[in-house]
């Protein structure tokens, strides 16, 4: 997280209005019946895919649980395979955040060329690299959950969703 200053209610409202549209998606992570965090995919464009993904687990009891990794896989499966919105996803990671760097690299994210000397670095994940790295992770997640690997999507159809997402919610 790059911005760490105090904000006013007005700043929060302004931020909310800037993301409350079809190009930004924020999901509450519910794990073992408890709301433990938030995951987002924001700044979508058809040309560049999702401009930035992010995750925040606010419940300390769940920081080292599977909540983060399961929700990451759900989100990537959603954008790449369920809605088939794009073939690229991006993440911004501070270059001293070893944990986040490793986390994203293990998913298949790669540092974008020219970002080496920058503090808030841009990483990119192609659908090909996600298939390569994510297949085994999805299989392991499926086994841990005794599931069948099916991603079930429910939600309200809205003009604040992309048409592709509304189509998934209709089916």
């Amino acid at each position, binding site marked *: 997280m790059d911005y760490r200053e105090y904000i006013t209610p007005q700043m929060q409202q302004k931020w909310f209005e800037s993301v409350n549209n079809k190009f930004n998606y924020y999901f509450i992570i519910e794990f073992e019946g408890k709301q433990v965090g938030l995951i987002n995919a924001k700044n979508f464009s058809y040309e560049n895919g999702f401009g930035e993904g992010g995750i925040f687990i606010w419940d300390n009891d769940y920081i*080292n*649980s*599977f*909540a*983060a*990794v399961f929700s*990451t896989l759900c989100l990537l499966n959603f954008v790449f395979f369920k809605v088939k919105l794009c073939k690229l996803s991006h993440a911004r990671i501070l270059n001293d955040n*070893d*944990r986040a*760097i*490793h*986390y994203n*690299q*293990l*998913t298949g994210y790669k540092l974008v060329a020219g970002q080496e000397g920058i503090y808030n670095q841009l990483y990119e994940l192609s659908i090909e690299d996600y298939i390569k790295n994510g297949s*085994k*992770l999805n*299989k*392991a*997640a499926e*086994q*841990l959950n005794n599931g069948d690997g099916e991603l079930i999507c429910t939600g309200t159809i809205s003009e604040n969703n992309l048409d592709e997402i509304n189509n998934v919610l209709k089916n």
Partner: protein
Amino acid sequence: MSINEFIQKLEAEFEDMPQGTLKAETDYRSIKGWSSMHALIIIAFIDINFNITLSGADLKSTQTVQDLYNLVQQKKSA
């Protein structure tokens, strides 16, 4: 598979982990940048290489790489 082969293959699963980082006595949760993603990779690694499905509880019962290796041997012979 010997413990040394096990360690080499496990190291290869983690991006950019220099060879020789893991030892039998290494507490694997202490590796740099450890997260639940690493745990899932270990589960996938053991499934692919040994056809053994570990549960979250199985993983919790281990601490070192040697513990993991012993668990695999135990489940293989069960």
